[in-house]
């Protein structure tokens, strides 16, 4: 119930303004999420680093300005699109960066949102317009 409340809190029923930033967010599991423990245990250190750096459901993959014409496959089942008004694209474009530690790629994407949010967005059809409070739900993996 609390999750639903939070979800509804983020969603705005907005009809009469221009969007300011749009987020393309991974909506599916990664193919390596289905590996068993035996396979993971057999990985070399480099392979394990790469495995751990894989993108995950909820990762913010791309950020674009309002009105972006997304591609045919930039939608479900691969991605959801979250449109956020009253945000400057310049202020939020860095949400699409990887997480590096020196020259080691720790995570393909540094920022993500909760998987429960993604599940709700999938149920709602994959394209959402939310309030700028959405930013507070973004998690920094660092």
């Amino acid at each position, binding site marked *: 119930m609390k999750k639903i409340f939070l979800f509804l809190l983020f969603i705005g029923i907005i009809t009469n303004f221009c969007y300011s930033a749009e987020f*393309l967010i*991974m909506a599916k599991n*990664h*193919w*390596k999420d289905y590996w068993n423990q035996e396979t993971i245990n057999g990985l070399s250190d*480099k*392979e394990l680093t*790469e*495995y751990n*750096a*894989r*993108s995950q459901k909820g990762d913010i*993959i*791309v*950020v*674009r300005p309002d009105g*972006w*014409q*997304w*591609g*045919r*496959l*930039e939608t479900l089942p*691969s*991605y959801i699109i979250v449109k956020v008004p009253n945000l400057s694209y310049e202020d939020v*474009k*860095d949400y*699409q*960066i*990887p997480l*590096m530690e020196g*020259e080691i*790629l720790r995570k*393909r994407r540094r920022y993500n949102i909760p998987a429960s949010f993604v599940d709700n967005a999938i149920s709602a059809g994959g394209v959402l317009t939310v309030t700028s409070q959405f930013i507070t739900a973004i998690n920094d993996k660092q």
Partner: protein
Amino acid sequence: MKILTIFLTITLVFNQLCFGLSQIYKTVQESGGDYTTLEACLNDNEQDLVTADCYLDIEICGTWTADDTTACTLHNYTTDATRKITIYADSDSTHDGNAWKSGAYNLGSTAGSVMLLISDGGNYLTIKDIIFNCSGRYTYAIQEYKALTSPSYENLIMHSSLLASSTLEVKWDSSSFIKNVMMFDVYRGIGTPTGVSNTVVCNNVTILAADGSSYGILRVKCTNCFVGNFDTEDYYSLSDESDYNVSSDTSAGDEAVSTYATGKTSYSDYFENVSDGTEDLRLKDEDQNLWGISGTDLSGTFTDDIEGDTRNNWDIGCDEYVAGAPPAGGGGEQSIILILD
């Protein structure tokens, strides 16, 4: 007709069953394609291509009005020599040897330090025909994250890479193949941070440095290259199999080479345009007339130049000079005279 249709269907199914290798084809286009960024495409298609018995072709299509500004990572794929990844551009989105071609695709820069980071998926990879515009905070256009089996970087333009390490950084124990690459306004060019490599092959590259830059090509095997204007050295610690190179300093002659030219600094005499912001490093004349030496014939490996022209003279650098031909991609005007009787 019906029998023919049935026959073709059976043939198709038979081929699928017996010769399972199939193509996964995706497009990246500013509008109307599968994806609008290369990163969204690479991320979405991550898979074990060997088990799937597929090869992945990513075609960058159409004309572009703005840069693709999302940093890319190519990892978590499994590839082999036939189940490989190819990233290429169509005739509208490729550069035709001209970094400023209107409508060409640019992998541009907004954030991060690596525009294309390549790990395991790049073991069997070809990337060609596109521009890396590193004018933002990027320090690498391409960086190999680990030693790779057989990546190929072909017919690329890279410019304005800032400080730090090489614009195209390879690993010394990779077997990377680099050809027909144009770089300008860069602080470092192509190289490996450690070790001297005989397995990284760098052919027919043209690099002109920005002011205050360090090394042009370092620690790889280098043939038919022009490198100029680097403050520290144009070439540094090359493989001793390197040959047929030209430099603005003396470094093209530093290694055990038979044919080289040094002290070549009249850049505006060699290239179509060297002015900041409008650079065009295609040749004004054949290499023999410009530098007094000619490149060696590498037709056993490849036969084209950065514009797709066939190499006959084997000019040094990324461009094959073609007498009387205006540069492709809008470099000159052509007139057609109609004579009416």
